[in-house]
């Protein structure tokens, strides 16, 4: 049954995922080509200087990609479910409703993690070639916040899509906007190091919002 729910999610999202993969390839190519060109033309010391003196992370082009990926994946997965209230069909399937919902957003989290792992591997492979391990870690401490924004956008996006009333949707949107603002308020590398674990737990708590929206959907709440 889990396999079939994953199959359903795959059918809904495969087109979007291939598109996102293509967009990511272009962004990574552009972003890392700039790094390689800078290193080759101006020398590796320029890259070090950019990271150390100018607080740059060299992969800023990717800054909003995880956020956009999370939000759009949530819409791709849940828009067909709420359109004509198809979610009723899903919740009528003969398996635990909590488990069904968990598998659905679990699929999304796995997809996001796969994308973020891919980004990390490619970035690491290039930056590790030019920068010291400490500097690579510095870049990744910043990129981790962007990933966190992606997970936050996804979990909140799921809850917003499922939520049956516009009033509550607006509240959820405001909460999400505040969280995302917090995550992008500082562009300084490692600015979030101290609060990153706390933020991670807070973002993961967004799962509760999905179950809250499902409960409200099942109660048949309307505007």
């Amino acid at each position, binding site marked *: *049954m889990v396999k*079939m729910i994953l199959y*359903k999610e795959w059918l*809904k999202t495969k087109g979007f995922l291939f598109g996102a993969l293509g967009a990511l390839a272009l962004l990574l190519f552009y972003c890392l080509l700039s790094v390689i060109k800078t290193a080759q033309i101006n020398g590796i010391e320029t890259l070090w200087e950019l990271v150390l003196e100018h607080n740059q992370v060299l992969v800023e082009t990717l800054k909003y990609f995880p956020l956009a990926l999370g939000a759009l994946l949530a819409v791709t997965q849940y828009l*067909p479910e709420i359109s004509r*209230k198809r979610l*009723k*069909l899903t*919740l009528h399937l003969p398996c635990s409703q909590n488990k069904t919902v968990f598998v659905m957003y679990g699929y999304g989290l796995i997809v996001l993690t796969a994308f973020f792992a891919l980004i990390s591997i490619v970035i690491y492979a290039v930056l590790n070639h030019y920068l010291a391990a400490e500097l690579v870690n510095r870049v990744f401490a910043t990129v981790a916040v962007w990933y966190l924004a992606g997970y936050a956008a996804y979990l909140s996006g799921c809850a917003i899509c499922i939520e049956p009333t516009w009033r509550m949707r607006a509240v959820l949107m405001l909460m999400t906007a505040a969280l995302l603002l917090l995550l992008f308020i500082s562009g300084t590398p490692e600015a979030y190091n101290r609060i990153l674990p706390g933020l991670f737990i807070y973002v993961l708590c967004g799962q509760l919002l999905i179950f809250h929206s499902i409960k409200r959907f099942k109660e*048949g709440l309307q505007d």
Partner: protein
Amino acid sequence: MGIYTPLGCSYLCKTLGTAMEPVISCEHLTHYYGRRKIYEDLNFEIAPGHIVGLLGKNGTGKTTTINILMGYLTPTSGSCRIFGEESHCISPITRERIALLLEGHVQYSYMTISQIEKFYSSFYPKWNREAYYSLMDKLKVAPGQKISRMSNGQRSQVSLGLILAQNADLLVLDDFSLGLDPGYRRLFCEYLRDYVKARGKTVFLTSHIIQDLEKLVDEVIIMDYGSILVQESAASLMGRFPGLTLEDIFIELTGKY
């Protein structure tokens, strides 16, 4: 004003014990959308093996009743039970016994004919693949055709094919005749009646097209704004209005629009 004739299967249930436990029972069901009353103190039961039609004008609460029954709406007061379980927390085992057709024949339209069959078949142990594909053969659609690219009528038939293939004990069909042409509608009603009677299934349905229900339903529940007007066996109701069709009786009881 109409007539309210309480019927249900309480007497039979008490006589025959749990073997005749009603498949569906709703007690003192009241629902309001905001301040707007949909109905008050609705009571009905559906016995196993019966085909019951819930009829009423638009906005009388037919779909609301189905939503409450399936656990997608919390009533203002009262309760419903399906196979003895509270409707707001139906267990997966019981959901396996219920085939649900949503209003508008809603399905996963991003799937193809074969994908949707593959998807549902894994959830239902009694799945009848032949029933589904024999219907699809009649539609002359390719297994790889996406449901979203089919006509409304074809989509309706796919939904009905999935419902029949599920081989469930209870079929809940919300406005099942929507989008079907008259010929297919009649054919489906005849097929459904034979299918249900041969296998001892129970059907609870709503429909806007009443003319086809005469030969299909055993019992009718006619709703008006706020309450049940009639809950009676179709034969008995027709007997009380000789010479009139079920549609005429419906108009007689509920008044013209």
